[in-house]
Structures are given as C-alpha cells and as structure tokens.
C-alpha cells in the first residue's frame, strides 16, 4: 500500500459505504453552496453591469461614450507604437534579450484592464508590455526596463519578460508558460481570506492550457471559489504550433467550464466586446461568484519573438486577421457612431508619439544598475527568530 493510501486508510475508521455516503453529502453541500454563491454573484453583477452600460450609453460629454472610446483607442495606440519603438531599438542593438510583441492583440490588455480597479491584482506572461502599459505603469518606466536602465520598474533586471511593479499590483511578467497561474490563485486566496472585494486577473495564452499548472489552478480556484479572472489570450499558436496540434479539445472555454466555472469566448479583436466581457466577469467575481474564464480570441500580427522566422502560417492568414486590426475595428466604429475623423486620429498619434519620445529620451539618459549590485536583493535582510 502506498503511503498516501495508507494515510487515507488510517484516516477512515468507518465502512466504505459510510464514507461514500458522507462524500456524497459533502459534495452536494458544496455544490449547493457554490450555486447560491453564484446566483447571488450574478444578481449583483447584473446590477453593476446595468449601471456600467447606462454610463457608457450616455450621450457624449464628460465621461461619455465618445471620450471613453477615444481613451481606449489612445491606450491601444500607445501599446502598438511602444512596441514598434521596441522593434527599432532592438534592431539598433539598444534593446537586448528576448522581445515578444503583442501587436494585433492590444484589445485584450486594454479591454480587460479597463474593467479592473487599481486595487485589483494582475499577473501576466512574457508577452506583457501591453498589460503593463494598460495597467498604468508609465511608458517611461517600461521603456527604461527594455533598455536595461536603473529607472525601469524592475531596475533594468527584468527586461521585456519580467516587468514587475508591486506598487501597482502588477505581479510580473512570467517567462514560464503557466507559471504565474498558481501565484495568481494565492493572491486571490489572500484577498478572500482578508475579506477584500478585490479581483486578481491572470493572463496566459492558449499554450498554457496544455500545462499542468493551468489545471491545478483551475481546480483550486473553482474548488475554493477564488476571486480570480482567468484571461486566456487565445492567439491560435503556442509559439509555432497551431491550436489544433496542441489541444485534443480546441474549445478552450468548454474545457475551462469543465471545472465548474463560468467560461465563454469573446471577440478579442473588439476592445468594446473585451471590456464588456471583462466587466461582466470581474463584476461577478467581485460579487462572490468564484472564478470566471474568458477565452479572448485574438491574433498576433508579428512573429512569436524577434528570433522567430514565422514559417508556420500563411501570409494570407495574417492579412485576413489584419482586416480585423483592433485599432481599425474601434476606429471604424468611432467614425461611424461618434463623428471621429482623421484629424482626431492624427491628434492621438501626435500625443502618443510625444509621450514615447519623452519615454525613450529619459530612459536613454538614465544609468544602468551597477554590476556589483547584482548580488543585492537575492534574499532579504535577516529577521531575528525566537
């Protein structure tokens, strides 16, 4: 008998049937509890939703629809142009290491994080420039990180993949696929234990759903009803492997739903759809409805990384997706519904360009962390025990 089985046997003194009966009861109780919790959550969430929808539908003016959309567009533009600068700086040898771009996916970070408050926590991936910027980490701080400068949010140590800003509750930047998921579960558990009405949002890609850490986290989160938004960025490729060649079941929301959590697919190229879905999910989570899963269907226009020759997909496929460029999708809608014009776009472009000029200039002017400091922060100062 294995030690685990032996331990289980040692724990149970009643007959197997008694244990089974109790197990059934426990299961039913838990399911009832979760259902009640979820229903309450859904009711509260609907109220929050309706309020949000009313606000957004308000006629143009302070806090109105057009201004909100313009703000979303500006932020997506900032992410797009920031990454284009990174490409230039990488080609010039100023940015070193790996660089993974989210160009084409901007609606996801901007739309999802629009639905969170600054008290909510964010855990991200290695394709996280967009998440960091949408979270509100200044472009200057992220750019300094890209350039390895001491003024970067991780002092220049983290680089592209390990942006970290605890003060903004941005808990990384994780280079290990699915590595951030269990950490996010812990952040969410802490909030629940403290009684905080906070949400933790964890981003990960479709590739992460083949990893064990996703499944451990999904099970823990659903079992314990954790306040967690699982934001799956399904860009159809795990690096170079297409979805159908990495997953036996490619309906990712369906798989997440098997853990007993609400899960649905979202058009990840439409920032308004993303925002709406994220508000709905975050609202329900905040109201005690347990974890929610969003499958954000998106596409990256650039290769996996700067090293990737991108041989695994047809040019025509990329072009088809570019027709649904999230900047264009929102821009077209604003033109049609909000009287948005070329001059408005030009003004946004100029504004973003000026911000990025400033970010690059200041980052370049900053120093690097002294080499001898690399041994600092490996561990903390000693704390005397008993």
């Amino acid at each position, binding site marked *: 008998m294995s030690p685990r089985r032996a331990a289980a046997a040692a724990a149970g003194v009643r007959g197997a049937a008694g244990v089974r009966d109790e197990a059934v009861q426990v299961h039913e109780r838990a399911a009832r509890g979760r259902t009640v919790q979820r229903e309450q959550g859904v009711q509260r969430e609907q109220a929050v939703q309706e309020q949000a929808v009313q606000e957004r539908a308000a006629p143009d003016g302070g806090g109105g629809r057009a201004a909100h959309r313009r703000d979303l567009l500006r932020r997506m533009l900032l992410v797009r142009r920031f990454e284009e600068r990174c490409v230039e700086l990488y080609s010039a040898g100023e940015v070193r290491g790996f660089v993974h771009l989210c160009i084409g996916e901007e609606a996801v970070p901007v739309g999802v994080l629009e639905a969170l408050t600054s008290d909510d926590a964010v855990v991200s991936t290695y394709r996280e420039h967009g998440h960091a910027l949408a979270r509100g980490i200044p472009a200057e701080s992220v750019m300094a990180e890209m350039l390895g400068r001491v003024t970067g949010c991780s002092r220049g*140590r983290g680089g592209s993949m390990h942006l*970290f800003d605890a003060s903004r509750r941005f808990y990384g930047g994780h280079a290990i696929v699915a590595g951030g998921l269990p950490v996010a579960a812990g952040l969410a558990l802490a909030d629940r*234990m403290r009684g905080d009405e906070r949400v933790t949002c964890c981003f990960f890609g479709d590739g992460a759903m083949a990893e064990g850490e996703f499944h451990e*986290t999904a099970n823990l989160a659903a079992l314990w009803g954790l306040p967690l938004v699982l934001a799956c960025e399904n860009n159809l490729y795990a690096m170079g492997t297409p979805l159908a060649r990495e997953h036996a079941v490619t309906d990712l929301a369906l798989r997440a739903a098997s853990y007993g959590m609400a899960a649905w697919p979202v058009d990840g190229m439409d920032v308004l759809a993303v925002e709406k879905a994220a508000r709905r999910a975050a609202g329900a989570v905040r109201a005690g409805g347990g974890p929610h899963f969003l499958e954000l269907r998106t596409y990256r226009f650039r290769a996996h990384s700067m090293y990737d020759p991108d041989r695994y997909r047809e040019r025509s496929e990329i072009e088809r997706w570019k027709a649904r460029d999230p900047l264009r999708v929102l821009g077209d809608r604003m033109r049609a519904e909000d009287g948005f014009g070329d001059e408005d776009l030009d003004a946004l472009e100029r504004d973003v360009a000026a911000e990025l000029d400033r970010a690059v200039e200041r980052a370049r002017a900053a120093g690097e962390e002294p080499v001898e400091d690399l041994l600092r*922060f490996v561990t903390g100062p000693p704390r005397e025990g008993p």
Partner: protein
Amino acid sequence: MSSFTMVKALNEALRKELEADPKTLVMGEDVGRLGGVFRVTDGLHKDFGEDRVIDTPLAESGIVGTAIGLALRGYRPVVEIQFDGFVYPAFDQIVSQLAKMHARALGHVKLPVTVRIPYAGGIGAVEHHSESHEAYFAHTAGLKVVTPSNPVDAYWMLRQAVRCDDPVIFLEPKRRYWDKAELDPNAAGAPSRLHDARVAREGRDATLIAYGPMVKVCLDAAAAAEEDGRSLEVVDLRSLSPLDFDTVTASVQRTGRAVVVHEAPVFMGMGAELAARITERCFYALEAPVLRVGGYFAPYPPSRVEETFLPDLDRVLDAVDRSLAF
C-alpha cells in the same frame, strides 16, 4: 523540560508560530483533518480551524504557487510536501518563482514561505519516498536550505524558519522523526541562530561533517572510534544554504582531516562543495585529501537493500581510516 520526539517538536513549533502570528498558515495534502502522514500537523486543524490549517488537493505546484501569492499579500505560509519525491512537480514554482521573486521585485515584496519536506531514507519507504534532494535547492540562489538532526534543533529551527522573511526549504530527516530529546519549548530563545553550524562532538584527529539524518551516524562512528583510541570531531551543518563555513574551517584547521558524510549521491553532492572550499581555505592545514562518504549514483533501491545502500558507521569509519592512513 520534557521529552519530545522530533515529530512532536515540529508540531509544537508550528503551534507556537500559529499562536504568535495570525498571518501564519499551514497548508498541504492531508495536513488538516488527518494531521499529516507523519502526524506533524496533528491537532492543529482542530485548534486553529480550516482557514489557517488548509487541506489542499494533490497539486504540489498549485500549493507552492498559492503560498507564493499568499506571501505576496502578507501571509506567512508553511507548506508541507508529503514526501520528498512529491516536491518535483512543484520544482518550477520553487525554483522559477519562489527563489527569484524577491530579486525580481527588488526586495519590494517579501516571500516568507517555508516548505517543509520529510526527506531521505532509512524507513523502508522506497523510491520517491526516500530522496535526498538537498543539492538541487542549495544550488538555487534565493532559497535558504536547512535541516535539523535532532528534536531540539527541529523545534527551534522550524520556528526560526517560519519567522524568516525569505523562502526556506526545511528538510526533515524522517528516519529521525521518532528520536527523542529533552526540550523546553517555552525557553526564552533558541540556543543558536538558524544558519549556524554546531560542533556536535569535540575531537582532535579528524572532522566528520554531516547534517540531517547522518549526524547520528557520525556521532555513533565517533563513539566507536573512541574505543579504538581515535578522537573524532563531528560538525552538524544544520544550514546548507547559507553555509556556516567558519565553523567548518575552524574545526578542520585544528584536526587537519575532514570527511563529509551525506545520504545523497556523492556525485555533485554537498560534499563536493565542502571538499572544494575546505581545500581552498585549509590547504596548508590538511594532512589528507577531504574524503566523501555518501549515496551511490543510482535511484533509491528497494527496501530490502536499503541498509546496504545507506552510508553507515562502517563506511564512515573506513573513510576515517583512509584519511588517517594518508
């Protein structure tokens, strides 16, 4: 003063720390209602409740990752890994996240996570349940790795580990779980600091360096050697990372001979690091090369050959003979 087994001492240490700080949590597989396979958490669930002594699913990576998230939010989780071999599924979280996050966050976050692991062999528990994997963890910057050899150290070191703001891998030699010693759990303070080595027995002719389960083997070997007129010193390292190398150096400078003893395979083990460092620091004092006694470079064997496989008194004394004859 009363008599404590190592299990009871560890249990008492957890109890004291749960009482001392409401942010301290215990979590792991069957640590709650069952009280753990080895009963180290016995009774804690009843007294502190299911929110502080948390039964988890069988998901080692999920458990350690969750503990990291809790620590980022100010909690002080003590994770139990049920058996040494079960830690491997959590290796990613320990090495990629737990060990590195403090540096990644420039010290803006603390990671007071203690990972308790019953480790090493000697109880007939076969492969995956008898692993000595300390070198993996000691090799990783950002982790502290400690291992007590007796109930008194187990008690104080666990309390100190829980209070430590850095991640601590706390290795419990399970073959010593039922050893007894006199302990006053209410004494004012610990006899020594968490990362100090201890001279467990004084001697003149050679130094035996050991930790965890092998300290008792070395003390027995030293007692046997005394009957042959040889005086052996035994250093109990207690902490493998950081290493208290001053205590080791002082001993070897006096005796001129050193034998490192551990259960883990000799190849690439702690003994290699110790031998290299002793050679660098004590070169002119050495009368013989530093010798190593340890496990074979093979998976852990079936229990019927365990006694042959594990380093024992004879293998230690044979190495001492070779050192003295050099």
